[in-house]
């Protein structure tokens, strides 16, 4: 067992973990932040996407010990002062989700997308979320949601 210290959604947390423990499992099972989902075991779906030190990362692909000392933001930490993040609003307004399973990861990926490309074209949005799978929406309303959020910032 090793101890890791991670700042999660602005709060300092510690956990005792086996070296093989994935970050996503620590977030979900030890910190009870179950908004981060698991959709695969080959790092392809993006359902587990969180921000590590401000950039989106697949938390199923990082051992918890690798995240020691870093700052992690999960979907639960995205709204500030009870105000939804523009992307959260965008997804709601544009019907960017159906079952909602891919949604937290999709939103966290889009955070980085909009940070790097504040005014993206449709093609750039599609490219930017190509690492996230959604089986429900056909992506069109997700694209709309991200466009809406970009326009509002």
């Amino acid at each position, binding site marked *: 067992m090793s101890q890791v210290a991670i700042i999660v959604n602005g709060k300092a947390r510690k956990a005792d973990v086996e070296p093989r423990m994935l970050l996503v499992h620590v977030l979900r099972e030890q910190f009870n932040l179950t908004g981060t989902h698991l959709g695969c075991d080959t790092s392809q779906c993006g359902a587990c996407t969180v921000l590590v030190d401000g950039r989106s990362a697949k938390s199923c692909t990082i051992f918890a010990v690798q995240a020691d000392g870093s700052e992690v933001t999960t979907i639960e930490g995205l709204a500030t002062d009870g105000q939804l993040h523009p992307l959260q609003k965008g997804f709601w307004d544009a019907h960017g989700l159906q079952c909602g399973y891919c949604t937290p990861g999709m939103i966290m990926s889009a955070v980085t997308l909009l940070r790097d490309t504040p005014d993206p074209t449709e093609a750039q949005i599609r490219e930017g979320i190509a690492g996230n799978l959604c089986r429900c929406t*056909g992506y069109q309303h997700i694209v709309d949601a991200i466009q809406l959020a970009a326009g509002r910032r």
Partner: protein
Amino acid sequence: MATTHVLPKLVGQRIKRREDPRLIQGRGTYVDDVKIVGMQHIAFKRSDIAHGRIRRLDVSVAKALEGVEAVFTGAQLAELIRPMPIGTPFPSPTHRAIAVDVVRYVGEAVAVVVARDRYVARDAVDAIVVEYEPLPAVVDLERAMTGQPAVIHADFPNNIALPQIASGTGVDASGKADDTKIDQAFAAADVVISQRMVNQRLVPNAMEPRGVVAHYEPGKGSLTMWSSTQNPHILRSMVAGMLGLGESQVRAIAPEVGGGFGAKINIYAEEYVAAAVSKALGLPVKWIEERTEAFVATTHGRDILGYVDLAATKDGKVLGLKLRLIADIGAYNMLLTAAIPTLTMLMANATYDIPAIRATLVEVFTNKTPTDAYRGAGRPEATYFVERAMDMLAAELRIDPAEVRRRNFIPSDKFPYATQMGAVYDSGDYEKALDVALAAAGWEALKAERDAARKQGRLVGLGLSMYVEVCGVGPSASLPTGGWEHAQVTVERDGRITAATGASPHGQGNETTFAQMLADQFGVPLEHVTILHGDTAVVKQGIGTFGSRSQAVGGTALVMAGARVKAKMAKFAGPLLEAHEADLVFENGIISVKGLPTSGKSFKDVASYAYVPVPLPEGLEPGLSEEAFFEPKNNTYPFGCHISMVEVDRQTGEPRLLKLVAVDDAGTLINPLIVEGQIHGGLAQGIGQALIEEAVYDEQGQLLTGSFMDYAMPRATDFPRFELQAMVTPTPVNPLGAKGVGEAGTLGSTPCLVAATVDALREFGVKHIDMSLRPEKLWRIIQGGRA
């Protein structure tokens, strides 16, 4: 008298979903988010060969691992639960939840481990040693039908799961076929199109894998289960039956469910095993499927081979159709497996008036993961076979594909229309759908664009397809689980409305659409309506969400129950307003006398009066809560037309979808925003099937496309912006006029894309290409064409 503000009518509006605030903040509760004190994790040891006899199964090392609570083999499990039941009246071999002596597909469970956490459970699974005597793997479908290279189930000679059944022209109720008419049709034909087509096997891949938490409480003798399922009530009945418990001792909860697409209708081995293990150990247990596990352990979809013969005159009038279907159902029958391909037969008429049709079906066992429902379930296959044949006819006769269809449509004045296949199409206007689509796409301009592109040497093609599907599934005669849906509506003491529906959603937005309907019905704000679902302790009865039925059947049950409560509420309000109940209107949170809007009592006051009724009106019981079961007399038949443009890269063979126009008629729409989302999602799955998705097995029965690394899931970059247009032809089958839309997108899209791709490659003389339209396949056609 409170000041009134006018509440807008909500049905038909693009209302934002009420489910979303929790989901966009990561506060939905999916099954893996459920935690119970003392909960153990279970994991399955699965066969890594397709067919073999278990020679040795050694669980001793696994059992001795620190943190392992128990290990059960198939033989031990067989003492706890009965063989797996199915939901269709077809013959089925014995199927144990965990294999006892023979494994029949890669992924079949051979043992289950119960351990402290999921890591230890996995360690223990890896520590189990199994030795098999390999048996020949039955992989090739048509070879399997000859009993080669092996017979999978001793009681099913030649691997025939379902010996040939026939339906259509000249087939009587007993299944006896008279060929006279069909033979005459083919004898009279100027042209006959014959093509073997494969509607390939797909992996459903809901983004949330399956999962279950089972909690048997020995003190109470009752079991609570959380499962990622489309139908908790069916789960409850089946699990109770398997464990020998009464249905009232089992509570099944479908929490937030991360997509289903038909693959979460089936009640799976893992659900029975989790329940049995929890009961045996007196401990709560959780099983969460891993993705690569899901690829082999969750049912697959499609996999029907069709031999299609279409007879027509030289003017393109279809005289006869023969459809010989062979379904590869994998190693076992699951809940609805055997019934799915019968829907392909049922829909063989498609949108056309065809004088003579014969469809036959054989179902065959192979050493593959069993098939069951997958979005569209049998209907996309029918659409595909018939529409492809229509295109080949158009090409053969050099008639525009739109025109050849126009010459064969069931006329709009012929509805309700009894088909040769035994369906009664409720309502439709196929020619109008075609015209709307042609106009929306600019068909003639597109043709000019295609021809201009071709002049520049580009490989561009156009495709068009019609579809009609069967939705709103019921009545009970057509669904072994029961073809109704249930709802209960309660007006609470404070005037809020609580409604419970048996239609258990997994992304369809029923909490929003159902609330829209009730808010309108009672004239109250949307926020005052709460929709409950997915818990058998809260929703007394139900069937579930599949077959695009939740609105058409579940929605109707809901407004029926609503109407009953409303009628009773009017009886309470009548005396208060000194008016006859028939003269009351419910609007803007007020119940008032027709024509005297300011005369009213608030909805809330009438509600509280109903619960403290002093005086109690003559002949009334206190309270405002009513329920309804709705059983439709017929299915509904939504329809539409899809048009696409595809370009194939001459160098690489890669196809690219440039344009997709979809005209869909799902009857009355409750929330067009949600409907569009449903169509988009269906299109993505249909286009995925056409272009990139395919479950590929090798000769040993190994699934080669067994993870997201190998199985091509559609991504955002695979699609252009879809162009949708709605048409509304209400159904007479239910009072809402709603037909259902969940599966629509998967129907028109596959033939439409294949047609466009074949059209793009026309210069190489190609007439048909089987899906998926992999670049390598298209590249070979291009190369062959050059040679």
